[in-house]
């Protein structure tokens, strides 16, 4: 099976969990003998902090995987506002001398137009897309090849904005999932939202909890001197409303009152970062709250291992790969009850994201009681190493979703056939093809 996959983030870049999820999924699929052509947008002239630049170094060839890069300063998780800033900073790429429009939707259109070309050039049996920004690309690709379409949903506009958010993005999310033959959701929580808020039939949605690689032996990494010999509490994630960084600061203030030698690291970047820096000063945490900014490569694992506790106070967390990454590094993690990972993880402390007293209590407990800490650290390690949360399992379940899509009666005919050269092409259902 040849999958034409439209994505945009890929390690070593870490804006959030999506890069990790995409890598994990692709690796898992390749292991299962599924050929993957991954289309990723990236910006040629972008600075290191710009998400998509990291994709350039993803050029590292993997057997069976072809990477096709489309130049674009897409930053879907920053939203239209952040995109504007990036464009002003001149971090946008150029392609064929074309000047980019200064808004995200124009970029989405451009990406989709190129997707059409790629669909013509790249042989494939199935199209896979990831979140709203690639849905239009998937739709156009299918209009060309008439192959089945799968939509992965990692997070919705509701999750990112804590409300309805941008109506145009909402519309694109709804349309993308509606047109898809199968929808793959990160968690039951997200599936419920997709059914409730987007009106997608539940029977069209498969739930696949994304796992991560958790080898028995982790490669050693350098420590982080600022945390050396001190109890250290970590927040790692986009510094946006969705991830609840302000709760982390409130927790830090409470923990600092009890554990005077504690240090805090807030890693990541986002629109709330300036506000968080000011808030840290206001809470008199300026000297022990260390802002690591955007972290990449082995810095991520260095932070997890330097930390004694990882706190994930996300307001909304469809999955929450940070928790899995933290556990993989033997660092106990505090997660919101509502996070997708809460559906699969047992060795994590659960809290309400807004209950800063409870979170602080748990952090202090972990810092002060080695037995509790070891229990959660060891248990968490065992859990993320379990096959249930492995890459293969996620790939196997995704493969099942592909199979259903391939057999879908919808797949044989595009739900919105686009006329080209004056007539409608009919395509033989994939199941009837030779081979």
């Amino acid at each position: 099976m040849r999958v034409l996959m439209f994505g945009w983030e890929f390690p070593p870049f870490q804006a959030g969990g999506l890069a990790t999820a995409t890598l994990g999924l692709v690796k898992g699929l390749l292991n299962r003998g599924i050929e993957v052509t991954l289309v990723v947008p990236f910006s040629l002239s972008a600075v290191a902090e710009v998400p998509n630049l990291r994709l350039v170094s993803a050029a590292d060839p993997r057997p069976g995987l072809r990477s096709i890069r489309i130049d674009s300063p897409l930053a879907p998780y920053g939203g239209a506002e952040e995109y504007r800033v990036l464009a002003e900073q001149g971090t946008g790429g150029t392609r064929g001398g074309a000047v980019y429009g200064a808004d995200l939707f124009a970029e989405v259109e451009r990406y989709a137009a190129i997707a059409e070309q790629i669909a013509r050039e790249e042989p494939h049996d199935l199209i896979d897309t990831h979140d709203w920004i690639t849905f239009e690309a998937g739709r156009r690709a299918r209009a060309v090849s008439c192959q089945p379409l799968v939509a992965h949903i990692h997070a919705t506009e509701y999750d990112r904005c804590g409300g309805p958010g941008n109506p145009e993005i909402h519309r694109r999310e709804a349309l993308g999932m509606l047109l898809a033959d199968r929808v793959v959701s990160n968690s039951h929580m997200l599936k419920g939202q997709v059914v409730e808020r987007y009106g997608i039939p539940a029977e069209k949605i498969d739930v696949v909890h994304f796992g991560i690689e958790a080898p028995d032996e982790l490669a050693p990494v350098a420590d982080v001197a600022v945390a050396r010999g001190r109890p250290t509490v970590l927040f790692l994630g986009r510094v946006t409303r969705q991830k609840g960084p302000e709760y982390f600061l409130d927790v830090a203030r409470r923990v600092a009152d009890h554990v005077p030698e504690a240090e805090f690291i807030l890693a990541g970047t986002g629109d709330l970062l300036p506000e968080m820096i000011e808030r840290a000063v206001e809470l008199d945490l300026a000297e022990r709250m260390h802002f690591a900014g955007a972290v990449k490569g082995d810095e991520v694992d260095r932070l997890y291992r330097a930390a004694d506790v990882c706190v994930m106070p996300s307001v909304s967390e469809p999955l929450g790969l940070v928790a899995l990454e933290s556990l993989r590094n033997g660092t106990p993690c505090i997660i919101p009850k509502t996070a997708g990972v809460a559906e699969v993880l047992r060795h994590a402390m659960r809290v309400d994201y807004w209950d800063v007293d409870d979170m602080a209590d748990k952090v202090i407990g972990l810092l002060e009681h080695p037995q509790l800490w070891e229990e959660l650290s060891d248990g968490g390690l065992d859990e993320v190493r379990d096959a249930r949360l492995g890459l293969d399992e996620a790939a196997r379940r995704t493969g099942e979703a592909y199979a259903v899509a391939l057999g879908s009666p919808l797949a044989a005919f595009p739900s919105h056939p686009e006329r080209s050269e004056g007539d409608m092409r009919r395509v033989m259902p994939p199941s009837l093809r030779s081979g």
Partner: protein
Amino acid sequence: MPDICFYFQVHQPYRLRRYRVFDIGTDASYFDDEANRSILRRVADKCYIPANRLLTEAIRRSDGRFRIAMSLSGVLLDQLQADAPDALASFQELVATGGVELLGETFHHSLSALRDPEEFRAQVRMHGAALERHFGSRPTVFRNTELIYDDAIAPMVARLGFSAMLVEGADHVLGWRSPNYVYESVSAPGLRLLPRNYRITDDVGFRFSNRDWNGWPLTADRWADWIAESAEPSVHVFMDYETFGEHQWAETGIFDFLRHLPTALAARNIGCVHPSTLATRRPIGTLSFPTATSWADVERDISAWLGNRMQRAAFDRLYRVGREVKALGDPRRLEAWRRLTTSDHCYYMCTKWFADGDVHKYFNPHASPYDAFVAFMNALTDLERSCAAGRPSRPWVVDGEMAVAG
């Protein structure tokens, strides 16, 4: 006809690099050597060297009647010595004409006057020693960092032996009074105050290249006419030296302005005086500055450096860490700390431009004031930890000759 008193400020900070949390405890090079070197080179080529040449010729041609005052910060002198010795030589040649009075300031262009009198005195003495070393002269008139002055600063300056001090001719202090006179400090009788005439200064410093300004294009003759209109004794024109060629590019004609200025002034019988000469004149009255005043922005206060909470938190911590650094007695660490006292670091954390919607108003080596704060605090954490650990001195990256308080 009034006299005119020129004073040019010459300063470049040691800018911080993006010092990250991962660097704490592993890397003690806080400063962006490469950027600092290349900026210094650019400013030397575009401003210092050509402007020095012009002024040297003007002073020689006028037989010493054209004269100016200058202050070069110690951190600039260190950088010139290390990375642009040709520019340092051109300053020495200019001073050797005898037409330049060098003023005293804090070696590190710091805000220490506002927080740490002992450190303030140490940095002023360091600066005096540096002037002696490079130019063979000792200053008698003082100008504090960014012309920051209040009634509490005056006695410290007077006790250091200075006869006069440059201050901002701020409207909120002067009221109905004119800046074109010599005044006396209310808190340090005997210490003369020379208020800057910001209006006539800004014609050159800010408005020179502004085509929407009705004074454009400004010629030396026209500007000299405006000065000649004054019936008051002395007009005090204080500005950044980087005005020539850096703030106002050569293409604006700023060097032509400077070239013709001595003749234009002489033709109108406007005499040039040094600040120390003005200091011998009888003051017309006293001035009181109850709050700190500077030459910055429309506010003319210290909010550009200490206006927001980040700046104040960083500033408080800086001087707290300073006590530990001094207790350790390691001259290299002390110099690294002193380079952090340079006011520019606080300036980069300023957020008040945001209100004007004019974020890019000033050159800032950091991506944002928040990045500036994070890098600064990280460097301080490293310095603080290294002192607490009492570790032997690591190879601190401090180029050039070590300047240590005498």
